[in-house]
């Protein structure tokens, strides 16, 4: 399984699936933050944006994700103040410049992105910013991999591990994959030869019956990860359970603001109830995220669900599995 959505896109673009020998199959995993965001969270942040006092700042990927009643893009067209930002620091600038507005930042992303949000909250506290908060949807990859391995329906023999998440967390958090589950893992870069090297390493490990966790992206990923980022995460957040689309609630896979930073938690500040969503959509993103089915096994794929009119988030995100399969359709 290639865990990371950026790997999925790189594999699709390079046509790697087409050159693999019989018996070797690449399954796309849950490494797309937009895709794994739960319906209940999508509906909650859309509620935030309906408040005319609120500026909702978000990374662009989240704009077109459909909730139960529309997307942020649709809400923006109706006059809501939803702004796409490149960095959480842009959202901080909005809060400083418009003190009569409430700026909420959508904290979406894995360990690669979470330290930037932690830093912004720290800066906001230091600067006494009262009109800035975050809706924290950051999630962690190793816990999701454990959930996948614990799921008896999945059939994974090895993981191509995400290169940029690994920049932050290093190698050690993956060791349980080999030690406890006997499954191989390879941290790989994103160019086609680097992905191929990852596949080769996994195949050799599996054939030898000696699964290891190897780092094939050493020029970018230090074994210990980015210590400064890890400290920042520990300083601002504590681990909590988080709901993932398709994978359900995964223990310890989310971040919650520590008590001293609680006033920056939009969920606490605005008291919008997070309601469970009974999705009646026939979208099968959940199963796709676990690698149980391929996009073309979903009845909506390329029919009622396209990048122009996505039904589920796996088709919305530029690195969603369905978007990748759609774009590189000769997979």
């Amino acid at each position, binding site marked *: 399984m290639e865990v*990371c*959505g*950026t790997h999925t896109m790189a594999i699709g*673009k390079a046509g790697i699936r087409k050159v693999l020998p019989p018996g070797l199959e690449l399954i796309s995993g849950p*490494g*797309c*933050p*937009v895709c794994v965001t739960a319906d209940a969270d999508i509906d909650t942040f859309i509620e935030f944006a309906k408040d005319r006092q609120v500026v909702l700042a978000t*990374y662009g*990927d989240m704009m077109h994700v459909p909730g139960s009643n529309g997307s942020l893009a649709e809400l923006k067209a109706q006059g809501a103040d939803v702004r796409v930002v*490149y*960095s*959480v*620091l*842009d959202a901080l600038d909005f809060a400083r410049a418009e003190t009569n507005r409430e700026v909420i930042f959508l904290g*979406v*992303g*894995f360990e*690669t*992105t979470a*330290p*930037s949000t932690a*830093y912004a909250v720290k800066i906001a506290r230091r600067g006494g910013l009262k009109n800035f908060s975050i809706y924290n949807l950051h999630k962690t990859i190793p816990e999701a991999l454990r959930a996948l391995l614990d799921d008896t329906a999945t059939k994974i023999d090895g993981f191509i591990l*995400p290169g*940029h*998440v690994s*920049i*932050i967390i290093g190698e050690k958090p993956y060791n349980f994959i080999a030690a406890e589950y006997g499954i191989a893992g390879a941290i790989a*870069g*994103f*160019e086609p030869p680097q992905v191929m090297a990852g596949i080769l390493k996994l195949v050799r490990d599996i054939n030898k019956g000696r699964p290891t966790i190897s780092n094939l992206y050493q*020029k*970018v*990923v*230090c074994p210990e990860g*980015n210590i*400064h*980022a890890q400290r*920042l995460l520990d300083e601002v957040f504590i681990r909590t359970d988080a709901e993932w689309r398709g994978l359900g609630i995964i223990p310890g896979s989310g971040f919650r603001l520590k008590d001293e930073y609680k006033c920056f938690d939009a969920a606490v500040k605005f008291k919008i109830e997070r309601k469970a969503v009974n999705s009646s959509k026939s979208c099968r993103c959940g199963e796709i995220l676990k690698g149980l089915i391929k996009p073309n096994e979903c009845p909506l794929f390329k029919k009622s669900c396209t990048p122009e009119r996505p039904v589920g988030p796996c088709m919305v*995100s530029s*690195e969603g599995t369905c978007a990748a399969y759609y774009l590189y359709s000769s997979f």
Partner: protein
Amino acid sequence: MCLAVPAKVVSIDNEFITAEVDIMGNSKRVGIVLTPEVEVGSWVMVHAGQAISVIEEEAARLSLSAWEELLRGEQ
């Protein structure tokens, strides 16, 4: 979403813990709180407005060539 782009550090602002970087010919201000060891002339990987890793020039050039190929494919 976990995309990271290689960039070369042009100048450093220690007061605001930021750096001016060159990303494929574009000038951008990025945070360097996660990479305090960075120096002018260093190569870094930039993600969501923060430099998240200091890398060797060789790794940066390899990644840049992949980016250029990707961008060419979209034209």
